[in-house]
């Protein structure tokens, strides 16, 4: 059946709702990359075996990640009329207990993390009710989802479905309000109107540069070209973050819906999703989702009789960090070497195959359905003046809980580390942190009160980037850290422009000299001059920011640097 009117979604919605809270039971296992690494697939098989052995009936469903990567494998149990129970650390050996809880009605207390009486999306529109009446004494020992800081302090707008729905089921996505924004747009909104809403929302790019999405679309819409393209940047080359991977593995339709809407606004006929070469599972789930959307006519010719036709393809990248840069990405899509292009002309004028092209990060695009559904004004209520909406943040390094979360822009870095990461792994002091991947500066603990938004981080000397947050404790050798990041740039420089190609090598020599204890004041001065020179003359932001880690260490950790200097 093809969807023609918004009402046509209703039937699918009912079907999806039954899947989400069936009359029998539903057992979900988190099988994103973080879960699989901890053996989630084995847990799935063990649960299936146990169901058979104990003669119990339940749907076993693979879902994505709810952000609690530290507690993987995560298993959830939903029984008709009873609260949804979240279990953590559910290895193969716990499968029997979990299955047994279905027949006894008693939850497995020692691994139960949360109880969930009703699932509500953060926009408050959709909900799935689990418990009928009050949950009773059986569940009193288990923490209520709504009272759990880990979720209470988040605002899960973009990632609302992650970990709840089956990423390979479009019905479940639609059940929780999916594709209703697209249906609304195609049947009752003009492209200009949507672009205006996106402008009102003041949504800025989540991929690094933070350019306002609405303005980019408008420029592309105005540009001349016989064809136009929308490209979703899923390159995610920063070496510490996997939240966009995890998000795609958890809710691919959310990104696809955003891409179709973007395509409608700029009048593109074709879209590409450019994925990091290692994202095999994400790529499979996205491809499945595309096939499902094609089947009900949300991709293809004359979508919902609106006259708008659009097709979407997934392309696997070649595994180079610089291919995340939008013009290098376009070169890579065209089958050339991933080297950045001269700008201007900007991609919105001359992009893929020389045609006007919008390149957006996948998280930017996943925000679009929310803006279309609720309006730009509603969206702008969250966040701070320099950044509206939320940001998905991946927390890694020396934290006790590795996780990814979605918080309003403007949340303090400190709060994120304390609330979600539960501080450092063994109670040690935090020495430094870094946001925005390798190009961000390494900042000292005294700046932990900095707000996580575009301007506050820029003032502190770093950037929001695509949302990595790395924590380093007091044992970290900060010089060694700067060396590691410099080596990263030396590895990843594409070699096109001289200042980056030669600059990164010289920087690495200099930091080596300092790390070996032979550095002098002169070395530091050369680094400072090189930082400026590389910022002024490099072709793309990779070279421009390559000296940022070292320069920030010299600036913020003078004590550490001095200790390493040559004793004269």
């Amino acid at each position, binding site marked *: 059946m093809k969807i023609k009117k918004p009402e046509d979604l209703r039937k699918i919605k009912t079907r999806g709702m039954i899947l989400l809270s069936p009359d029998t039971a539903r057992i979900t296992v988190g099988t994103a990359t973080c879960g699989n690494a901890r053996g989630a697939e084995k847990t799935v098989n063990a649960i299936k075996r146990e169901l058979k052995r104990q003669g119990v009936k339940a749907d076993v469903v693979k879902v994505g990640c709810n952000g609690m990567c530290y507690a993987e494998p995560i298993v959830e149990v939903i029984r008709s009329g009873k609260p949804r129970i979240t279990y953590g650390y559910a290895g193969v050996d716990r499968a029997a207990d979990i299955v047994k809880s279905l027949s006894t009605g008693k939850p497995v207390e020692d691994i139960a993390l949360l109880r969930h009486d009703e699932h509500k999306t953060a926009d408050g529109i959709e909900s799935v009710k689990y418990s009928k009446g009050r949950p009773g004494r059986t569940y009193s020992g288990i923490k209520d989802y709504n009272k759990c800081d880990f979720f209470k302090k988040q605002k899960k707008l973009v990632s609302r479905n992650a970990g709840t729905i089956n990423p390979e089921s479009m019905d479940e996505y639609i059940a929780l309000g999916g594709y209703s924004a697209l249906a609304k747009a195609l049947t009752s909104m003009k492209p200009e109107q949507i672009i205006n809403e996106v402008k009102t929302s003041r949504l800025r790019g989540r991929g690094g540069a933070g350019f306002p999405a609405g303005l980019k679309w408008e420029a592309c819409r105005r540009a001349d070209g016989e064809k136009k393209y929308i490209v979703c940047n899923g390159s995610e080359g920063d070496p510490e973050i996997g939240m966009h991977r995890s998000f795609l593995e958890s809710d691919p339709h959310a990104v696809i819906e955003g891409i179709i809407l973007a395509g409608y606004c700029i009048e593109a006929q074709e879209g590409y999703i450019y994925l990091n070469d290692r994202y095999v599972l994400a790529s499979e789930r996205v491809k499945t989702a595309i096939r499902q959307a094609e089947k009900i006519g949300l991709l293809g010719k004359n979508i919902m009789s609106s006259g708008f036709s659009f097709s979407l393809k997934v*392309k696997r990248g070649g595994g180079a960090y610089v291919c995340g840069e939008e013009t290098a990405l376009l070169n890579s899509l065209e089958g050339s070497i991933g080297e950045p292009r001269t700008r201007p002309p900007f991609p919105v004028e001359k992009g893929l195959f020389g045609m006007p092209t919008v390149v957006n990060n996948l998280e930017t695009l996943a925000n679009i359905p929310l803006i279309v559904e609720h309006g730009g004004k509603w969206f702008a209520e969250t966040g701070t003046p320099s950044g509206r909406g939320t940001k998905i943040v991946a927390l890694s390094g020396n934290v006790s809980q590795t996780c990814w979360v979605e918080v309003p822009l403007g949340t303090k870095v400190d709060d994120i580390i304390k609330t979600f990461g539960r501080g450092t792994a063994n109670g040690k002091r935090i020495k430094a942190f870094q946001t925005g991947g390798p190009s961000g500066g390494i900042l000292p603990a005294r700046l932990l009160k900095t707000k996580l938004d575009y301007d506050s981080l820029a003032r502190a000397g770093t950037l929001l980037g695509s949302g990595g947050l790395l924590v380093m404790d007091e044992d970290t050798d900060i010089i060694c850290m700067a060396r590691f990041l410099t080596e990263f740039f030396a590895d990843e420089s594409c070699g096109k422009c001289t200042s980056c190609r030669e600059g990164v090598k010289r920087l690495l020599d200099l930091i080596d000299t300092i790390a070996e204890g032979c550095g002098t004041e002169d070395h530091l001065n050369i680094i400072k001059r090189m930082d400026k020179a590389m910022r002024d003359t490099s072709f793309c932001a990779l070279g421009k920011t390559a000296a940022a880690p070292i320069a920030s260490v010299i600036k913020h950790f003078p004590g550490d640097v001095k200790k390493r200097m040559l004793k004269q």
Partner: protein
Amino acid sequence: MTDIKLLPNAQKMLERVERIIAKNQGGQETLVTILHEVQDRFGYIPRQALDLISQRKNLFLSTLYRLVTSYRAFRIEKPEKHIITFCNGTGCHVNSGESLLKESWATSIQNSLNITVEKVRCLGCCNMSPALMIDGEVYSGQDAQVKIAEILSE
């Protein structure tokens, strides 16, 4: 080169590559996809496959070679029986990922003719940090030690 071992099967391999090329009609924009498909099939991109692709797509072999070697995803040498991939991401680095390389077994695996050792920028499972991947499966801590000992004793 390792290709010599492959010769008896070369014909079969080339037929395979020919089919992959036929499936991806078009110009240069199809190259990265073709290269991925060849590598997924054979574990690397054999020299004869490069020759064939350059002929079919009307490219200089040198141009194609430059493309292949500019991307990290592609191998042009046949990997050994086992592939051990160390995570060299920032998160694992902070959690002493490099100390894994200093473990007693590290030199043994570097020297083993059975094992190809690689480093990547992030395995995407910071919850296991410091992590490494052995033949497609992620390991850390004690499990990694056990698995590596098993491979070394083969």
